[in-house]
């Protein structure tokens, strides 16, 4: 508190300018995929002692809810409970392939890292994830390329059936209207219950059957799946 007052008075006197612990961020996120949507984004500044997720660790129930159904409400509340600050759903809905959301302002306060998550749709439990990016103390513009992770909480059966609640198999929807139906399901007895780099969806070219309701010509991706630009003021 005392330090803040001192620096404020120094700044007011116009003697020097420097950035304090708190940072004012202006963030943009671009969906780099060919044909996948991002569900509402959660952009969070929080303390580096906490992680929203970590590769090689089990996903929390809050992450599971986001990754399987795109619901960020619990995750948002969790960040608030640890004195983090968030921008929830800055794109006001889905972020289409190729689209960007810009001018997302975030006053980080004392929080030192930035995390960003959103479900990749249509998938079973894929999400775009930035884990504890250290917020630079130096003003400038920083670009980060972000990968897609598999939450490890649901089998990748690639069946579009409306299943978006945690623990319910299946994919909620293909927002582009480009999904198939009546798939028999991708059966793969793999069990990796940890957050891991997503192996990518399989898809097929049969809109009324086949193993997958996804279209292999539309819904595949390779990392990175998102570009994040952070302006530290």
């Amino acid at each position, binding site marked *: 508190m005392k330090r803040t007052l001192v620096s404020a008075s120094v700044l007011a006197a116009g003697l020097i300018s420097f950035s304090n612990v708190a940072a004012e961020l202006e963030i943009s996120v671009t969906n780099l995929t060919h044909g996948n949507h991002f569900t509402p984004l959660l952009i969070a500044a929080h303390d580096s002692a906490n992680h929203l997720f970590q590769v090689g660790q089990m996903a929390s129930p809050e992450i599971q809810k986001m990754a399987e159904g795109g619901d960020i409400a619990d995750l948002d509340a969790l960040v608030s409970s640890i004195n983090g600050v968030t921008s929830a759903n800055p794109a006001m809905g889905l972020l289409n392939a190729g689209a960007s959301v810009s001018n997302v302002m975030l006053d980080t306060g004392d929080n030192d890292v930035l995390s960003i998550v959103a479900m990749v749709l249509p998938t079973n439990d894929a999400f775009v994830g930035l884990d504890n990016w250290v917020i630079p103390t130096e003003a400038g513009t920083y670009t980060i390329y972000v990968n897609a992770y598999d939450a490890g909480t649901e089998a990748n059966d690639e069946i579009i059936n409306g299943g978006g609640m945690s623990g319910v198999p299946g994919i909620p929807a293909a927002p582009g209207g480009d999904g198939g139906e009546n798939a028999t399901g991708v059966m793969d007895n793999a069990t990796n219950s*940890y957050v891991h780099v997503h192996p990518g969806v399989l898809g097929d070219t049969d809109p009324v059957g086949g193993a997958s309701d996804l279209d292999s010509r539309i819904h595949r991706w390779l*990392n990175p799946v998102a570009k994040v630009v952070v302006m530290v003021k």
Partner: protein
Amino acid sequence: MKFMTLSNKNKLIALATCAVLISGCSDDDDDPMIVQEDAPAPVVMQTFDVTVTNLSANQPLSPVFIATHGADQSLWMAGAPASVAIEKLAEGGDSSDLTAISSLTHTVNGNGPIMPGMSETLTLSINEADVASISLATMLVNTNDAFAGVNNYDLTTMAVDDSSMMTLWVYDAGTEANSEAKGSMPGPADGGEGYNSVRDDVDFIHVHPGVISMYDGLADSVLTPSHRFDNPAISVKITRAQ
């Protein structure tokens, strides 16, 4: 090498000092002190902890191979043919030929495979005079000849407690056709053959195009969709502990 040069130089200076002292004074009980001065300097060690995490969906990693070596050495080069040592690692997870390379200053091998989602930390203590570059290699075992690793990372700029985190992509050794066929891959998806000296692929190291799987039109493949992978496949954190 550097260390040896330095200690020889010290020895020369010590000898010169000794000669001056001897000629300058009668030889009585000064001698033991001169002998003490001549003792070799203590060996200073640097210790590095290397943590490897398997980020893949369903590709166990063969026991990790880590080596330190001179800055002018590389275990492999993209675009060039793989050495037999890299071929053995990439086709069969066998690091014994890599370990046997005499010019490596230190080597360490992992205690076993690293399963998806798991990590292993290995420690190297290196004579300070040998600290230069580090390399690491491991096979993705449910493939014909895919491997990932660190190729010649500079350790000399790391201070105590510094750490470096990197995520790494997958290479194809180019030494074995990516048939994905029964009997051709050593991992649990197949339990087939590891190293085979026949080179029936492009014979240069390249970024791996990914596996196809039986679901995606490769009828003979024994792999399933979860064996497919995207980059990065492993993460490596190097911390200088001492």
